[in-house]
């Protein structure tokens, strides 16, 4: 069994990889990349050569191209020690036309061109854009850059190699002086004043400052050695990973008394345990300088409400439980009293839910719930009322109940003509006994297969329900990402869905094999 499951998992992961490749082809090759500038105010502000370089830098940010600006190249050379500080500004100065380059600039421009053209880049040089009076226009300065479309192969490889990030003390650039690199283990977490017992591992040179710590938030023990990167968001939630976008808390800031490493004490929402490295941030900002002693300044803030995934999961899981509690017994009774009054009403309900567009009955229930039962019809994160959960949960449970009723009735009726039922009846068992002890157990097996899937997919949220009731859940993330051309999020969310699908099928198979001894995935004679 174990070997079989491992095989299935590997196969599932492979198909998830194929899904990602397919999505990458769809979003990077087929979609028109010009669309990303549709609502970009910076794009309309820039002109001339500046607009061209802006376009390129944006393409790079969205992951379409590899782009190197000449001035970045000069900075790299200085860091590498191939260019000294004295010649730096002279080398970085691009002439208005190639003929006007200084000797030293021409030399480095030549080097830049050769280096990047050999790597398959296209080197573009834009001459200064002048007005009629000979002066350079706004944004018309001469520009030099190298660009190339990211090939699919490198895109896929770098996505999957970057997916799991193992934090290490060489994360911060080796050229940067940050004192002694290393990990320190302490029993007394300095954030709690240094005298409360709370083990922690603190790193220097790592990405996260706290690699291991305890705090009062679920799940209480936290680690940052291994982090998951599903894809960085660009427009939906700038610079934040998809997984974090889904799991970070939302709503209003929750302030608490925070004492910063410098000793500064303030009411703040910062969670200092989540500090990550941001190069040079301490020097650039006085706010940081007053609070932090090192460059680990980038923190996540405490917010009062659940994450997107949290809201979707709470609503999803409750409605799933309700659906099973209602759907299975009703389906069973419909089969038990076939053609009875309950069966007829149930069938009408099933037809209604299957045939009517979901949007229509969700609005219908919203209207009824709002006017007849006076339930809140819109979700409000700041409200502590639990009543606002009622309508979304009901709307989400309605179709699942119908679906479970339909299949339960179908499976029960299919089993009713089996030989074992006839045998039980001839043995003198009452109909109720036959139904609850024999048929039900056999009919439930295909239903059991779907349970892990319905629990896992409770997390992803429902697009329409969340839109209608304004639930801040994860269901809208994909549509939002598509509308904003956030390629990183599109890929991350799809991969997440694909992995959930794979996992729920495997778990379902394991579950039915453990419920039904007749099912075995290992025997050959299946």
């Amino acid at each position, binding site marked *: 069994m174990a070997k079989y499951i491992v095989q299935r998992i590997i196969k599932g992961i492979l*198909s*998830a990889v*194929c*899904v990602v490749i*397919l*999505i990458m082809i*769809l*979003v990077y090759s*087929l*979609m*028109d990349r010009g*669309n990303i500038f549709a609502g970009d105010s910076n794009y309309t502000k820039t002109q001339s050569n500046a607009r061209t370089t802006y376009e390129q830098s944006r393409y790079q940010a969205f992951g379409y191209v590899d782009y190197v600006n000449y001035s970045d190249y000069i900075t790299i050379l200085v860091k590498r020690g191939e260019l000294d500080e004295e010649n730096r500004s002279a080398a970085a100065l691009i002439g208005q036309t190639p003929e006007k380059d200084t000797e030293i600039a021409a030399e480095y421009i030549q080097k830049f061109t050769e280096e990047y053209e050999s790597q398959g880049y296209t080197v573009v040089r834009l001459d200064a854009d002048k007005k009629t009076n000979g002066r350079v226009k706004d944004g018309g300065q001469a520009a030099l850059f190298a660009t190339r479309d990211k090939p699919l192969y490198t895109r896929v490889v770098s996505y999957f190699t970057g997916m799991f990030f193992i934090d290490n003390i060489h994360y911060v650039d080796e050229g940067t002086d940050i004192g002694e690199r290393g990990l320190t283990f302490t029993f007394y977490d300095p954030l709690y004043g240094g005298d409360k017992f709370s083990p922690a591992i603190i790193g220097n040179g790592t990405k996260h400052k706290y690699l291991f710590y305890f705090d009062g938030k679920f799940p209480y023990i936290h680690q940052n050695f291994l982090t998951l990167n599903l894809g960085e968001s660009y427009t939906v939630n700038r610079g934040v990973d998809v997984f974090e976008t889904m799991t970070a808390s939302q709503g209003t800031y929750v302030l608490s008394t925070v004492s910063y490493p410098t000793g500064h004490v303030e009411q703040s929402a910062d969670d200092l345990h989540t500090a990550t490295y941001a190069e040079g941030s301490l020097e650039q900002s006085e706010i940081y300088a007053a609070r932090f002693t090192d460059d680990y300044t980038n923190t996540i803030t405490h917010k009062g409400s659940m994450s997107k995934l949290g809201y979707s999961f709470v609503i999803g899981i409750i409605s799933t439980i309700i659906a099973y509690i209602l759907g299975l017994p009703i389906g069973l009774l419909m089969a038990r009293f076939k053609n009875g009054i309950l069966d007829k009403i149930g069938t009408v309900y099933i*037809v*209604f839910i*299957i*045939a*009517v*567009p*979901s*949007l*229509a009955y969700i*609005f*219908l229930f919203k*209207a009824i719930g709002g006017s007849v039962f006076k339930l809140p019809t819109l979700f409000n994160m700041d409200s502590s009322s639990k009543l606002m959960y009622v309508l979304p949960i009901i709307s989400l449970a309605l179709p699942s109940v119908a679906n479970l009723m339909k299949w339960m009735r179908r499976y029960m009726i299919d089993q009713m003509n089996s030989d074992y039922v006839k045998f039980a009846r001839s043995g003198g068992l009452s109909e109720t006994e036959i139904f609850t002890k024999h048929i039900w157990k056999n009919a439930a097996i295909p239903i059991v297969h779907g349970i892990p899937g319905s629990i896992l997919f409770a997390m992803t949220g429902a*697009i*329409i329900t969340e*839109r209608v009731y304004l639930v801040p859940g994860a269901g809208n993330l*994909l*549509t939002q990402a*598509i*509308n904003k051309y956030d390629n990183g999020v*599109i890929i991350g969310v*799809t991969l997440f*869905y*694909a992995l959930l*699908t794979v996992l729920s099928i495997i778990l379902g198979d394991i579950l039915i094999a453990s419920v039904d001894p007749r099912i075995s995935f290992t025997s050959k004679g299946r």
Partner: protein
Amino acid sequence: MYEELKSKTGLDHKELFSQVKHSDTESEKIAAPRYSYWKSVFRVFFQNKVNIVILSLLLFVVALAYIYPAVTEYDPYANLLDSGAKHLSPGDAMEHFGVGLKWILGSGASGEPTFEAVWNGAKISISLAFICAAINMVIGVLLGAVWGFSKKVDMVMMEVYNIIGNVPMILIISVLSMLFSPSFWTMVLSLTIVGWLSIAYFIRTQVLIIRDREYNLASRCLGTSTIKIALKNILPFMTSVIVTLLATELPSYISYEVFLAYIGMGMSEMSLGRMIYAAEAAMVTPGWELEFWGPVAVVSIITIVLYVVGQNLGDASDPRTHM
């Protein structure tokens, strides 16, 4: 001889035997009542009086959707400049424009009669459903049959199904509407480009179930070709399954179009989905509700009627109900 006997005995011809010529072809005929499959299907279907009512309702709705827009000149922007014509209740609209059938649902955001807009939208939605269902069913059933029959094809197609099934539909639709324009035919393309796959998978499972039944094994042992087995042994068995599937597919395209329009990924034509999307704000505005509930009611009637007719036709096409 016969005349002789008759005169001798005085019995008439009925009581006398006469010789019949032996015929090989006649002796092969089976003297059972004639059974015609489709005749039986419709006999069973029309036995239920409810079906007659619902079928006539379906025909009425479809006729209304196709004939009404054809005979009336519908111009959504005819009253655009008439500021007093917008968002009128049925009573006010008839007062403003005079009594007429087209004002029984009031007027919409640009002064258009909601009733006419609804039937125009219904025409687009129903057309979309029929075209998509026709394309997907034909491709899906044919490929599904091959998929179920060949083990090699099955191996490849299962992987394809696992991969493509995980690509979100809305992503495919948005990419396609970006590549082309968000028009009716782009919508058809995006609903059919992978839509056949799930139908083919369903058919594949059905074929797998009956492929290895004893009667097919016997048929194969007697030397029947695979094509004949598929057409004569399996296809008749599948008819009711296919009709039932069609009954769920047809309304599902209409519902899906409504869903897409609601999340802002619909087509540019004013289908029922687009109308519902555009009138969402009207739902909560007193006096404007009909603009929203009008199309919602019509789309629900269309989908329910299509579903019920299809399901009952599917039941009737199962030969076991023909007894």
